[in-house]
């Protein structure tokens, strides 16, 4: 049964994953062990296949969806604390920029990775970012831009967060024209040039203190 659950997540079959999770619970499987021994290892294997080039994003997202379907069954039965999300993220494309495919991809992969994501959309003003941080109290604030001319809006947004006194949150930036150097210049706490790297870095940021800019760009 549990190996079948592993396979269902690996294949991105949400319907089967949910059915198998329910059956396993009904047959007395320990919810915590189901998550740690079958479900998380399945997602880890999905990640490895993606990095090897055996999987594309659709397979990654479908597996994430299957994981979520199984978790919805298991989560209410987990001990307090174990059911918490991996972290909370506020994400948006900065003011003046309407491009959102990269941002959407990062948001979807973060959700698949167990993060709770608040997506502010595109053309997000610094004040909206501040408001969202004050309301949602995220662990990570993620800024995206595609246009070179909207790069300065990243700095403006970070400055606004600083002025509002909510600078303690980790925040990172991404998008085609962004470089690690630019991220350092504007005082971001992290930088990624690709969506999967962003998720990996989010996990790292949640696990470690953030006194340096983690770099998840390709060599």
């Amino acid at each position: 049964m549990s190996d079948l659950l592993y396979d269902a997540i690996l294949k991105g079959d949400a319907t089967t994953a949910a059915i198998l999770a329910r059956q396993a619970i009904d047959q007395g499987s320990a919810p915590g062990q189901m998550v740690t021994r079958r479900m998380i290892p399945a997602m880890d294997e999905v990640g490895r296949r993606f990095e090897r080039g055996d999987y594309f994003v659709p397979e990654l997202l479908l597996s994430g969806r299957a994981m979520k379907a199984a978790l919805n069954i298991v989560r209410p039965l987990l001990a307090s604390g174990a059911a918490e999300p991996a972290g909370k993220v506020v994400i948006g494309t900065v003011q003046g920029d309407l491009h959102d495919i990269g941002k959407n991809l990062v948001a979807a992969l973060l959700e698949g990775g167990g993060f709770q994501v608040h997506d502010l959309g595109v053309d997000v003003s610094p004040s909206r970012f501040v408001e969202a941080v004050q309301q949602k109290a995220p662990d990570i604030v993620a800024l995206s831009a595609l246009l070179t001319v909207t790069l300065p809006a990243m700095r403006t947004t970070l400055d606004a967060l600083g002025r509002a006194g909510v600078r303690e949150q980790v925040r990172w930036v991404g998008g085609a024209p962004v470089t690690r150097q630019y991220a350092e210049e504007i005082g971001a706490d992290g930088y990624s040039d690709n969506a999967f790297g962003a998720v990996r870095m989010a996990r790292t940021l949640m696990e470690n203190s953030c006194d340096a800019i983690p770099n998840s760009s390709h060599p």
Partner: protein
Amino acid sequence: MQYRTLAIPNPRRLIYGWSPRPVRCGFDLAIGGGLVFPEVNFTLPAIEIRRDTWHEVMAHYEEMASQVLRRAVALQAPGIVLEFELLPPMTSTPEWGAEITLLLHRHLAEAYERHGLRGALRVTPVDLREQTKPPALREGGPWDILKRSFEVCIEAGADIISIESVGGKELHDRALMYADMNGIAFALGVLAPRDIAWLWERIAGLCQSGGHAVPGGDSACGFANTAMQLAHQKMLPEVLAAVVRAMSAPRSLAAFEHGAAGPSKDCAYEGPVIKAITGCPISMEGKSATCAHFSPVGNIAAGVCDLWSNESVQNVRLLSGNAPEAYTELLAYDCRLMNVAASKGQALLLRDWLSESDEDLSPQAAVLSPAATFRIARAIVAADTPYGRTIAAGMAAVAELRERIAAGRLKLSPQEIEWLGRIENQLRALPPDEEELRSEIQERYPGVFAPASYGWPPAPVLVAAGAAG
């Protein structure tokens, strides 16, 4: 009006620089009349666009226009198109876009008067209508502002009007990430054509009502180019991006069925199919657009173009001058070669060399080959509705890729071949009735698109009785 036949039925007549329906515009420029011209597109370096930085913004455009045209004159280019793609603040404050339009038009007028340089100005406002979720495409602030942007830019001297319209993108973005062909087919085959029909009737009307602008064309940039770039990054299968390219042609064709006359937009790589069907001139970009993005179709994209573009380049300093004028030179030399070959009666030979150098090296290039172009174009005109055409185009692309793989011409990884099978199966399973698919999509993607944005009545709101008071 619906195209039911090909305007260029003979594949040997689908060549660069020549179109059965050339467009005359701007300063005595005939596009598609026998010559290929450079289309130079330039943009700002990193700078915030605000009222207090506006003088710097204008200085950049002044510099870019004068340098680009100076280089074109120095190289004796037979003609040139400047493209001004408005940035979001220049569209949301329409008068800013108009001010730059006026500046660029003045430079083109001076170059024509002083040097006899034929030219035209393409102006492309940003489609702001996707700001809300779901996008309100037909009414409200964003549409009013976009319409105003068109009006004032036409008044200020735009010669060609274009847009990269976003109708259907709200669904396509999501469906693409899951390789959900039902969502992709509905976005490209139902939503986008409905929006384009509505939008382009208005754009064509605005062009007729004032100024001298011609309604150029649309681009599936936000759809098929997004897929192409994600495939390049190994995020999506290349075969998916290639099939999406073919499926995007009917939505861009819809612009021509509702008022567009060409030249189509440079980033519309579906252009060859549009040209074969409509006979209108097209703009394309490839190897000389490396300043903007990677492309697996660098040579083949030039094969049947009428304008040859660099996509977009920032005004930054290079050793030879600023980047926009350097890219003007690249384009001018590309065009020289093509025009000399044509003058010797060798356009077809050069077209085939451009095609053969790319077409077996990637699925994206394979579906742009002249053979694939005609296969897809014929499949499109044989179908009755935009939805039917979209599926037919996708199936034609799948068949083209399968034949090339079987012949050993196109070598793909086992994962890519498996994905081609999945895509084909999904396309074959699509319901023939688009209304049936609509119900399924609204259930699968609740609230993603607003029915009213596509001319359908709003979804009914159910209210429980008896609870008030």
